């Protein structure tokens, strides 16, 4: 059963990921991304990480890709781009190097964590009749708001910086044009 779920979800993820790259139309690519994100949510559920699955759907599928689509629609960039022209020189070689590096890091992480990957949920309370349905949420909240509270707050500062930066950029552009 679990294997079956994994195969289905993995197929969803892979098809979606390939779709993002292959589909020429930006809207279709964004929809493929939704497929991938859903597959990941399914995998989270299969691993009993229900809260993460919900957040995955709410935040990524529900907000981020919606914003992608919103921008695509609003700016009217939903036309096929010419792939021959390169807006930034040396972007492609750099992208190849970066993706190879990322692949290497991922493979190294998997090889390194091979032992840990097999024992699922040890030391973690899974939601069941004994632990109640909120076991996941409680444990996540405890670790985020006690052990990793600084990292958590720093991340929120990062988001605020992004917002302030956006406001500043739009104002600057307008003032400069005057």
């Amino acid at each position, binding site marked *: 059963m679990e294997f079956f779920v994994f195969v289905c979800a993995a197929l969803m993820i892979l098809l979606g990921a390939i779709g993002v790259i292959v589909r020429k*139309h930006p*809207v*279709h690519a964004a*929809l493929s991304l*939704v497929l991938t994100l859903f597959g990941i949510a399914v995998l989270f559920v299969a691993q009993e990480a*229900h*809260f993460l*699955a*919900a*957040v995955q*759907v*709410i935040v990524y*599928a*529900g*907000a981020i890709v*919606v*914003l992608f*689509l*919103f921008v695509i*629609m*609003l700016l009217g960039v*939903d036309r096929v781009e010419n792939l021959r022209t390169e807006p930034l020189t040396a972007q492609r070689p750099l992208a190849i190097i970066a993706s190879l590096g990322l692949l290497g890091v991922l493979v190294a992480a998997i090889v390194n964590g091979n032992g840990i990957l097999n024992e699922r949920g040890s030391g973690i309370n899974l*939601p*069941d*009749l004994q632990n*109640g*349905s*909120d*076991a*996941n*949420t409680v444990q996540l909240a405890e670790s985020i708001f006690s052990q990793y509270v600084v990292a958590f707050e720093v991340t929120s500062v990062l988001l605020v910086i992004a917002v302030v930066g956006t406001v500043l950029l*739009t*104002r600057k552009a*307008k003032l400069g044009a005057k």
Partner: protein
Amino acid sequence: MIALDPLLQDDLLWAPLLIVLLKVLVVFVVGLLATMLMVWFERKAIAGMQNRIGPNKAGPFGILQTLADGIKLFFKEDLFPSRADRFVFALAPFLSFVPAFLAFAIIPLGGDFRNGSSGEVTLFGQVTRIQLADPPIGVLFALAISSIAVYGIMLAGWSSGSKYPLLGSVRATAQMVSYEAALGLSLACVLLLSGTLSTSGIVSAQTTIVDWHIISTGIVPFFIFMIAATAELNRPPFDLVEAEQELVGGFNTEYSSIRFALFYLAEFMNTVTMSALIVTLFFGGPQPIAVGNFVLDIPLLPNALEGTVWLLAKILVFLYIYIWFRATLPRLRYDQLMDLGWKLLIPASLGWFMLLAAQRLARQNNWNIIVVTGASIAVLLICYLLMQAAFARSARERETQGTMF
């Protein structure tokens, strides 16, 4: 707090499987019937408010009017606009129809929750709940589903290849994404008090009227949730998505036949689901009205079935309120809509959440609750004044320098 459905704890056997199938069937049929009756109810009630008769030909009191309309729509020609993106155009109605039904799965539809009972019933020798699914994430599932529902409307507008539907769907996206924040934040107030995400847990925490979350969270989150839910449903006064006077018909202009009917169904189904969700979160769901030790009990009915009657009665009140909104309130302007969402609802729900959290902390640590509440209100007041100052400044700058965008 045990909140998972005990039915699904052991290995899957035939009896539980059949019960689950039965539940799915019942929820689906009830959903369709509820939608059908809701459409009729809305037309009839609005007709009454506007001194008209409303549907009165098909069946007694015109109750079969929706069925007649549905059959008519089935047999209409299914048109694809020539500039439409065919795949997405065909997909979009289902993207809004399916989530509308999915969200109904987590509503406790009955059961005995009195005095902290878990609301479990025995069906064919199996212990279960009168609710299709009780996932550990509970109400977050409803939020996730409502964020998926955005896609239906957005893609419908975009894939039509026409400008009015596109405008409608761009509006819809902005509106639904903005109000989802207020929706989630007011929901957080309820979750803070109930201490669980599961819907059945939330219901069993609301035994008497004083425990109902509308009172225990202090009414404000309820109003915010209600307004945000109305905006999330794209119902009047927030129906800018399909503002006929400006956008022909909004995001569904190019749709015809059964595809249009699916959008229509989804809209009304969402209204029913959202009413049920409001009742579950703030009005005790299937709990009877109880003050102190006095319980308003319906005689002769078993307590579990009584829950269903109470739930239906409470949902009907909210359905009527939604119809009432539609009949009386004029549509908001777009900037008013965004101002209401971002400048009022989100800060208010955040502030109220902080207040409740401070009180909870005070109760846990035995601090003086009056001092804590006073201090929180002072902080909130300062925040409010700062915000007002910022608004005034930006209004002044807009006047001197012109709009920035």
